[in-house]
């Protein structure tokens, strides 16, 4: 199972330090939130984790091998990412689209393995899209498109799920439902997950640990209960953030 190790990582973009000396270790069955204000470097960090952004310093290792040294296809069979932009509405059916998630696992150049078709179909079913299999992607609503993107990621069966704003285009009910479906799958398959989000409450609800990126390139890493405090969050977002607790739940809001 995937074991991600980020060691003294620094990322800069056009002279700006996004993160400096970041150390995180993500093990099997762990769910991590990635928080920080706009432009703090959440997306850049996720792109670095799939080898698409060079580390300026430090290392990113998956099961002991640098992600920059792993073949693209092999990396794709282990690490899957949901992009912030979601998927484009090009002419294609829902089923054709979800099957793309099986690309890193495809054995034959020409034929689709029945097992791949099975996995893709159950991924659609997990997000209630099984009735829409033959629908054209262009005809889907924003929410349906986002569910399709999540189904495609699920079909990829990665050991490490990276999510960039998974709650985009989803109403409150769907946010909770879809993220429950996804996090349950992560637990079932002993995979792990890193979720970049603007929604502190969502991160607190679905993740045990969190990486909080501060504006100056500093970062705070640890368990949600330790890291997600009024003081830390106010510092990260540059505005006063308060919280109320009720039992195990904690709710954050800008003062």
């Amino acid at each position, binding site marked *: 199972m995937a074991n991600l190790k980020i060691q003294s990582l620094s990322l800069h973009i056009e002279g700006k330090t996004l993160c400096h000396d970041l150390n995180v270790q993500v093990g099997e069955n762990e769910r991590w939130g990635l928080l920080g204000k706009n432009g703090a470097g959440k997306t850049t960090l996720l792109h670095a984790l*799939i080898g*698409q952004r060079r580390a300026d310093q430090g290392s990113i290792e998956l099961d002991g091998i640098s992600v920059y040294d792993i073949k*693209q*296809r*092999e*990396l*794709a*069979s282990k690490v*899957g*990412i949901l*992009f912030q932009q979601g*998927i*484009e509405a*090009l*002419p*294609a059916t829902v089923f*054709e*689209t979800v*099957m*793309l*998630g099986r*690309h*890193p696992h*495809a054995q034959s*150049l*020409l*034929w*689709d393995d029945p097992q791949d078709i099975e996995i893709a179909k159950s991924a659609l079913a997990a997000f209630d899209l099984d009735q829409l299999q033959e629908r054209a992607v262009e005809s889907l609503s924003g929410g349906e498109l986002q569910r399709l993107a999540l189904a495609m990621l699920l079909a*990829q069966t990665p050991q490490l799920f990276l999510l960039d704003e998974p709650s985009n285009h989803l109403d409150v009910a769907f946010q909770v439902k879809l993220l429950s479906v996804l996090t349950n799958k992560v637990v079932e398959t002993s995979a792990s997950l890193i979720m970049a989000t603007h929604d502190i409450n969502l991160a607190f609800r679905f993740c045990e640990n969190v990486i909080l990126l501060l504006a100056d390139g500093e970062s705070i890493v640890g368990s949600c209960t330790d890291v997600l405090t009024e003081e830390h969050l106010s510092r990260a977002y540059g505005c006063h953030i308060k919280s109320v607790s009720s039992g195990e739940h904690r709710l954050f809001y800008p003062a």
Partner: protein
Amino acid sequence: MIAQKQILVLISLTVVCVASIVFSLLSGSVDITATELARSIFSSEPSLSTQVLQEIRIPRTLAAFVTGGLLALSGAIMQVLLRNPLADPYILGISGGAAVGALSAILLGATGFWLSNAAFAGAVFSIFLVFGIANKFGSWSVTRLLLTGVVVSAGWGAVINILLTTSSTNNVQSMLFWLMGDLSQSSVNPAHYLLLLVGLVGGIAVSRSLNVLIRGELLAVSLGVNVQSLRLLLFFSASVFTATAVTIAGSVGFVGLIIPHMLRLLGARDHRLLIPSCVLLGGSFLVLADSLARTLIAPQQLPVGVVTAVIGVPAFILILRSTIRK
């Protein structure tokens, strides 16, 4: 992808292909009946029809097929590479370069062999020019490639106009035929067939990756496609297909743009089906267009590029209408 449905599509396209080839072999100024066609294929007995077929019609029909197949293949690849529905084999200036080469050769009185070589040299020069400029500052993006191609194309257009306006009327006639695409001077050699075959097999081999790449570069990377090398491969192979096609027949328009789109509209979006379908339909389409170009106003001949547009435009609009109504 349902294998049965795909095989059915490919079988029907093969039938269309054979029918268009037979139609082409039967049409022309010398009347040849189907029985005569069969007789000259299956017996070596010399006759007028055998001679007409072997020396004129078969080479020309094959030239049309290879050209159409290469253009449709190149168009389908360019549309994935540039992620632009308007992309066609000529969008990156390859035909412009070939045209300047060919027209200069005509100006110097060259024909046949030298004309083809000049066109090919012009095309290859243009490929490296566009790639060199787009690649100049390290990483080449699709937008940069597209812009470079369009600008270089415009430059070639200007040179073509200069050549046309300063040439004698006699030369202008041959130049216009070349520019519109014309198969009357064409000949193909085994290297051309081989290229089409390699393109077909290679295209099918990367078709899964094409399915992913057309959805976006970043997505393709995240699904394990080596986008950098795939794009290089696509650029150079599509360029070589185009260069070869224009060398055989001049810049025949329309095939490379419309055939892939027609097939996509009809449901062949999966490249595992689209690539072989493009070769079959692109080839058949040009064979058919060329038969009409030879016979419509016989004994005079039309440039085949005119016919492709005349039958292609209404056919495409019909398909567009019928698929929208669904």
